[in-house]
């Protein structure tokens, strides 16, 4: 169903003003979160930067934005804003004369999401400190726009978003499950289009900031939904469509960087469930005391689970299957394994949903208090500063988590059945792997 047939929606998306208004609000909130983290109370649960970033924003991102709108967050993310304005020399419409910038091409070696995998893992290893310490959160929040500005002044388009952003990597991966997509209406129209303004830019819109040619889009992964192509297309050939959930997963990627992203996200959700939500104090101590021997051991185990244990178990189960990769020659085995790991995308997303439900429902009551006293300085702006901490909806938490995990397992198994059929292997080892890790996740959460 084409949503851009709705005149109101189409004009709202084509106009720059609604998006700019949201971006400015987001930017103000982002800057305030940095200031709160640096100037406010060091008590995380009383500081706007921790409460609004890691509870409110995270809840909206993982429970609503990613599952329903894919990269919708990227469309209103304030991080690349300053860099993009500097790169373009304009805030709104394209200038007649482009400002002189280096506009270098991003190096071929890094035209993948390995750097995003690394940046996510770096944050993940320090997450116990990052999630709980306001000035650390503020420092990371402040560093990202500066990185984006630096890259925008040297490289073309949004190099930070596309290749470095630690959040963008997993949003892209999971955006394939969303029921929203940006696609061209008629491929033939794009094939005959001269100048390709959607990619190269025109007076009406900038060339795709995500370095994607919309005419070739088949997956949501790298489309940031910024709507520039909708504005630039002279033939009205860009559409926003409503579609079934998980639609992109029928076109599995055989890229190892994306496969490892799926393992990283799956493993991280399981490790967080054990470390942060589990009853084991020694694990929490190890994760929090950065730089100690215990932390190095924690980091080593963390990386081993993600890079050795999970991919190793997965590969072993597929390899031991009697119908393991029979017709794939040299070099294709890894690509087939990467394609077979596609079921880990819905499974991983649902792991994160189940994990986040527990974390968010338990701590959501801090939001009200923080709203009235964002810096923890004793203010009471809206009369809610003294709202007592109270876990919410704990009686439905376990059923909701079970529902999320069962849904994830069902979707993963469905995807595995399809993927295995095409790679000509049995789906049973992949479904078996998903079953085992889901049982472990369930045990960790309940």
């Amino acid at each position: 169903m084409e949503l851009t047939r709705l005149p109101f929606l189409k004009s709202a998306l084509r106009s720059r003003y609604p998006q700019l208004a949201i971006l400015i609000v987001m930017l103000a909130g982002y800057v305030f979160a940095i200031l709160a983290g640096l100037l406010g109370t060091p008590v995380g649960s009383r500081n706007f930067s921790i409460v609004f970033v890691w509870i409110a924003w995270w809840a909206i991102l993982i429970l609503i934005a990613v599952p329903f709108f894919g990269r919708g967050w990227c469309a209103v993310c304030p991080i690349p804003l300053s860099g993009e304005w500097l790169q373009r020399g304009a805030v709104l419409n394209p200038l007649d004369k482009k400002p002189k910038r280096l506009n270098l091409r991003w190096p071929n070696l890094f035209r993948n999401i390995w750097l995003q995998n690394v940046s996510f893992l770096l944050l993940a290893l320090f997450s116990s400190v990052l999630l709980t310490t306001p000035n650390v959160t503020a420092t990371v929040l402040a560093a990202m726009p500066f990185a984006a500005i630096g890259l925008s002044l040297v490289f073309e388009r949004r190099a930070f978003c596309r290749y470095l952003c630690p959040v963008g990597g997993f949003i892209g991966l999971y955006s394939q499950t969303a029921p929203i997509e940006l696609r061209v209406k008629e491929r033939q129209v794009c094939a005959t289009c001269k100048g390709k303004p959607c990619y190269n830019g025109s007076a009406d819109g900038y060339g795709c900031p995500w370095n994607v040619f919309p005419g070739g889009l088949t997956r949501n992964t790298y489309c940031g939904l910024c709507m520039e192509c909708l504005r630039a297309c002279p033939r009205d050939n860009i559409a926003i469509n409503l579609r079934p959930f998980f639609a992109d997963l029928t076109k599995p990627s055989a890229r190892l960087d994306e496969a490892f992203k799926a393992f990283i996200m799956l493993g991280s959700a399981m490790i967080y469930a054990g470390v942060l939500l589990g009853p084991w104090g020694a694990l929490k101590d190890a994760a929090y005391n950065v730089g100690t021997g215990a932390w190095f051991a924690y980091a080593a185990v963390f990386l081993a689970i993600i890079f050795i244990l999970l991919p190793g178990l997965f590969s072993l189960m597929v390899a031991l299957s009697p119908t393991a990769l029979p017709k794939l020659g040299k070099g294709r085995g890894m690509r087939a394994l990467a394609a077979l790991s596609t079921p880990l995308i819905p499974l991983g997303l649902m792991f994160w949903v189940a994990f986040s439900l527990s974390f968010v429902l338990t701590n959501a009551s801090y939001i009200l208090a923080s709203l009235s006293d964002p810096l923890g300085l004793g203010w009471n702006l809206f009369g809610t500063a003294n709202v007592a901490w109270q876990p919410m909806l704990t009686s439905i938490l376990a059923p909701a988590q079970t529902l999320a995990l069962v849904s994830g397992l069902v979707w993963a198994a469905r995807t595995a059945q399809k993927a295995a059929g095409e790679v000509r292997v049995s789906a049973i080892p992949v479904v078996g792997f998903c079953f085992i890790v889901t049982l472990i996740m369930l045990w960790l959460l309940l």
Partner: protein
Amino acid sequence: MRSFLSFLLVMAGLVVAFAPLPVRSVPPQAWTFRVEARQFAYSPSEIRVNPGDTVTLQLVSTDVVHGLYLDGYDISVETDPGQTAALTFIADKSGSFRFRCNVTCGAMHPFMIGKLTVGSNEWLFRSIGFFLLATLALFLFPRSIPFTVHRSLITDD
């Protein structure tokens, strides 16, 4: 045949969701646990009792002010450093419940968590039942949907 199998699966799902689990009939007892709280852990961090038991948790803080809030029972207690505070209740709800610190006690405070299991971890077993049923349903009702293989699996480049 297909509708009969669907009917069977739905019935099995209802059994998994609502059937009472076998319970060991043990006469209720009174238990007292000394729970030491420190940044950011409880010791012991996992407690098991039987349904109907009378449970007293003696919370002792060894560093800063801590608390203990028990999910599901919605009861709590707080204690100052070096002091002991007691919380007594009848474990009349079965299942697994987290207990967590309810007094901001430092950076990792939101993750200072323990676990009380009353009887068996009922929801865990029911969930495993749902998983098995869901997996069985997938193989009973396989769906064939056109699937696009990535080009690199077919070609050499």
